[in-house]
């Protein structure tokens, strides 16, 4: 066997093991966080209502109103964080065959409030169905994060295109908007954690998307322009149709499909 291809295989294996390790970390974090997200959202809902009520009290001083307004804004910000950070990673211990077209439709439905508020024009162009073996909750989270970013970046009556297609052995998800585009200064560190250009962002959204995509052995790319009149951003996720070939168990060994070979990896 030529020396090059041997080193190549070795590197590929290293890459997959690294992916597996990251996936492990993410899954563990997800399981812990997912279990408590419902609780957190409930506390947030209660707090939001209570602050709203306090603010409407007629004997509320001007200063109190100011403080409560700020408290309200802090809560909104917290709500943003919870909805983008692992909110949907649940007890996804198994990859299952799911239809990405259905999933994208569900994700759009979940955000239809914000979409109609801004009168965003949504266009979808997808195959009848796109069956892939993935962790549904995680992919849903990735879609949600990208959709939320687009919705935020879009002006009133902006355009949002969502497309799901199968190309050979990959499913391609495209989310495009004609918003203001990603500023040049952001592009180098776009996927880094905790770097955000949004005043209320925590910068985890795209990092999480990338981690999820990577743990499915997929790729994510984007193109963006801030040129006035032609501005916008396109994100493109590519996921192998059989990205996670077998269900992992909490302890024990895993079968990881790497191209056409399978290897057993013992954690």
């Amino acid at each position, binding site marked *: 066997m030529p020396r090059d291809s041997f080193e190549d295989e070795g590197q590929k294996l290293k890459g997959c093991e690294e992916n597996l390790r990251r996936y492990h970390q993410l899954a563990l974090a997800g399981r812990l966080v997912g279990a408590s997200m*419902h609780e957190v959202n409930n506390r*947030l*809902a209660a707090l939001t209502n209570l602050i*709203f009520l306090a603010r409407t009290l007629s004997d509320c001083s001007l200063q109190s109103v100011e403080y409560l307004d700020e408290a309200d804004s802090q809560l909104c910000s917290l709500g943003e964080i919870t909805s983008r950070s692992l909110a949907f990673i649940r007890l996804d211990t198994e990859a299952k065959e799911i239809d990405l077209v259905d999933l994208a439709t*569900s994700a759009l439905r*979940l955000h239809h409030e914000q979409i109609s508020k801004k009168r965003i024009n949504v266009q979808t162009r997808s195959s009848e169905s796109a069956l892939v073996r993935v962790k549904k909750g995680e992919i849903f*989270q990735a879609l949600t994060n990208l959709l939320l970013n687009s919705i935020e970046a879009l002006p009133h009556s902006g355009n949002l295109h969502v497309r799901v297609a199968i190309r050979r052995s990959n499913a391609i998800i495209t989310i495009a908007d004609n918003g203001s585009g990603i500023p040049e200064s952001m592009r180098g560190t776009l996927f880094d954690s905790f770097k955000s250009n949004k005043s209320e962002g925590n910068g985890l959204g795209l990092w999480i998307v990338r981690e999820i995509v990577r743990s499915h052995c997929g790729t994510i790319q984007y193109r963006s322009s801030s040129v006035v009149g032609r501005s916008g951003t396109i994100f493109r996720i590519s996921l192998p149709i059989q990205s996670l070939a077998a269900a992992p168990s909490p302890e024990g060994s895993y079968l990881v499909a790497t191209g056409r070979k399978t290897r057993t990896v013992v954690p």
Partner: protein
Amino acid sequence: MPDTNRVVFVVDDEAVIAQTLAIILNQAGFQASAFDHPEKAIAARSELTPALLISDVMMPGMTGVELAIHFRKAQPECKILLFSGQASTADLLEKARAEGYDFDLLSKPVHPADLLAKLRV
């Protein structure tokens, strides 16, 4: 029967959420009642006819989707709004859609101002 039915049922197994939301709605001119269990809302329907049901989805015993289907069958003209703080809701809604039921869903936390604006439309 009043001309405009302002009766609202608010259902959430978290009593604080159901109660504060009911107070907010009442302050806005509705006649809202809070229930911390779906069965209580079903029982109350024999005495009050709600124009609107607002319910959390994930509740022990009966889910908000099951409650919504019950109301949709028993009282088709009642509007229904479901809340959820979890993604597993999407699955439940898909199942409901497969049975021909389409419910409005808002994700928690919903700001009261946004909810009131939505109800005024």
